[in-house]
């Protein structure tokens, strides 16, 4: 029995179709954002996840609601895969009061602690230390949760990556470091900036397990994430899971994309994670063309409704601008002592 078949056996038909739907949902959402930018109703040059859906869905399928993720500037896919709802997500991307963060966070800072989403992040590599801390918390509080930290090949060259992987390994913390190697750090191909081919090789330097998988094969990602998760829960520490994938769209919507080789995108589109998964499901007799078309249409409708919801939502009230900068100080009650003594002097 091949690995793929054994993985299929782990997952029920319902779960597999759920993964498939989730991948479509992410793509439909991202294309709706793309359209929103083209129509001039979305600002801020959002970073889209089209082509990378298998990574988020493969990893997040292994997570429970109590588990946490940290995400990136290209985070919409991670958030949807972790349970983020399309309407408040889209509203946040449009900066509306009905967004997950009342319109103050935006595309790069969507967070929902209740869903275990510790936050997307505008700083490349910025979320890795947060993931280490959430995993430390799991250990200290014996909470039993694991943390998946998504980041890209660009982040793997930051100091934050080094410090975080070393610390998580030294303390054997339950983190899955998910490196989405989508070939480009912003506009720059990885071979220009990095001497090694597989970033997972760096795991050995930190004393953790490192694996590279085909990031466009959702079941391969799932399988590797299951193993990483088991290691984390067994107290064996973190894993560096590199998922090789490809960014179909620009770094952000509107980037000139003049850094790609001719024909490169077309070549990679033959490896699109969605048709690949469809083929597996069709061969397994779990899905037919009709059901596929139906799921595609339903997820597109959801995304369309999310954009309509966001467009019809109110902007935050101007009074919100300086709210939530910090929380009011807690009252101290009977223990409060403002001052011990005032030195002598003439008042």
């Amino acid at each position, binding site marked *: 029995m091949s690995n793929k078949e054994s993985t299929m056996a782990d997952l029920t038909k319902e779960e597999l179709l759920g993964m498939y739907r989730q991948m479509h949902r992410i793509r439909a959402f991202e294309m709706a954002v793309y359209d929103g930018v083209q129509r001039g109703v979305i600002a801020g040059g959002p970073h889209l996840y089209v082509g990378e859906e298998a990574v988020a869905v493969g990893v997040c399928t292994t997570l429970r609601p109590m588990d946490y993720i940290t995400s990136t500037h290209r985070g919409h896919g991670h958030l949807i895969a972790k349970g983020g709802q399309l309407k408040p997500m889209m509203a946040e991307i449009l900066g509306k009061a009905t967004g*997950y963060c009342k319109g103050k966070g935006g595309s790069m*800072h969507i967070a929902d602690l209740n869903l275990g989403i510790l936050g997307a992040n505008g700083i490349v590599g910025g979320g890795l230390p947060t993931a280490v*801390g*959430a995993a430390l918390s799991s250990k200290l509080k014996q909470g039993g949760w694991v943390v998946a930290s998504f980041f890209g090949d660009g982040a793997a060259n930051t100091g934050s990556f080094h*410090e975080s992987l070393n610390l998580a390994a030294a303390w054997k913390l339950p983190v899955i470091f998910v490196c989405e190697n989508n070939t480009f750090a912003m506009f720059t191909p990885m071979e220009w900036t990095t001497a090694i081919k597989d970033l997972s090789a760096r795991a050995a330097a930190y004393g953790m397990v490192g694996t590279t998988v085909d990031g466009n094969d959702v079941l391969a990602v799932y399988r590797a994430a299951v193993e990483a998760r088991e290691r984390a829960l067994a107290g064996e520490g973190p894993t560096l899971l590199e998922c090789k994938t490809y960014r179909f769209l620009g770094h952000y919507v509107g980037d000139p994309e003049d850094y790609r080789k001719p024909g490169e995108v077309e070549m990679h589109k033959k490896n699109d994670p969605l048709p690949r998964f469809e083929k597996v499901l069709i061969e397994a007799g779990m899905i037919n063309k009709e059901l596929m078309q139906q799921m595609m249409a339903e997820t597109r409708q959801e995304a369309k409704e999310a954009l309509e919801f966001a467009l019809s939502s109110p902007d935050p009230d101007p009074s919100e601008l300086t709210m939530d*900068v910090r929380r009011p100080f807690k009252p101290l009650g009977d*223990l409060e*002592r403002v001052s011990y003594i005032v*030195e002598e002097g*003439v008042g």
Partner: protein
Amino acid sequence: MSMREISYLQALNEALHEEMARDMDVFIMGEDIGLGKGTLGVTEGLRHEFGPERVRNTPISEQALVGAALGAALTGCRPIVELMFIDLLGVCMDQVANQVAKVTYMSGGKARPALVIRTQEGVGLGLAAQHSQSLEAWLVHIPGLIVVAPSTPFDAKGLLKTAVRDDNPVFFIEHKLLYSLKGPVPEEEYLVPLGVADIKRKGRDVTIVATSHQVQYALAAATTLALEGTEAEVIDPRTLNPLDVETIAESVRRTHRLVVVNEGCRTGGYASEVAATLGEHVFEYLDAPIMRVAAKDAPIPANLQLEREVVPKEEDILTTVRQMVGSSGW
């Protein structure tokens, strides 16, 4: 309330012991803590009492430490990070400024970054340009951070305990020359509120706002000035951001003169911020321009004589106040 005299360092140590004993979610991490006294000595005895899980000796990875504190805080802990020198801000500033400080706002008020970053600043030990700075101006410029700098053992203990309990990220700045300072601290438990300044000495002729170790110089200057017939009121903001503007403004409305003393560099410094803010509030009450007494705009030199010269001291405060009181206003 029964009092005894203990040092600033002991006061901080007591605060940590008490808060860790009170709340299992409180833990502390930092470099060289837990092995004997540690570099600063503030964490002495904690590892013995609370164990290695809650008193964590870490790699030299300030960025990861500050970020890990954030992750732990967002998932229910109350971490305390010891940043050995404030000068190390440069290596963890992304986590401080972009992650910790902004997460409450960026999440629309949902995130609860209940963490404390303890550090120490200032000159005094000949540690030169990268271990002697006073960088509070960098921190007060970042919305979302609470910045605290106690100047007495009483304030140090009470403010640290409050900082640990608060749900905001608190940057807690100690001063290397204050650790040995002794002062009265109650036996009983108490908390000093955040955001409330303290009048350290009452006076009617001039208001001196001073921070951290400079409060000691300001009080010494006030004693000298009293012999000359000038009664200086000395105010320590204690919480540098948010600033308790009203306590200072109320004082200046009585004294009509304001001097602001801070050990950071003069240009773009904390003294400038206090001066500008008070200028907006009490300009019409002033009998003289607001004056700053701050460090010269130079890196801290290694030479001890030059180090004494680069930052304000009692004489600088005296000179400024005498000129101000002696002049006939504007």
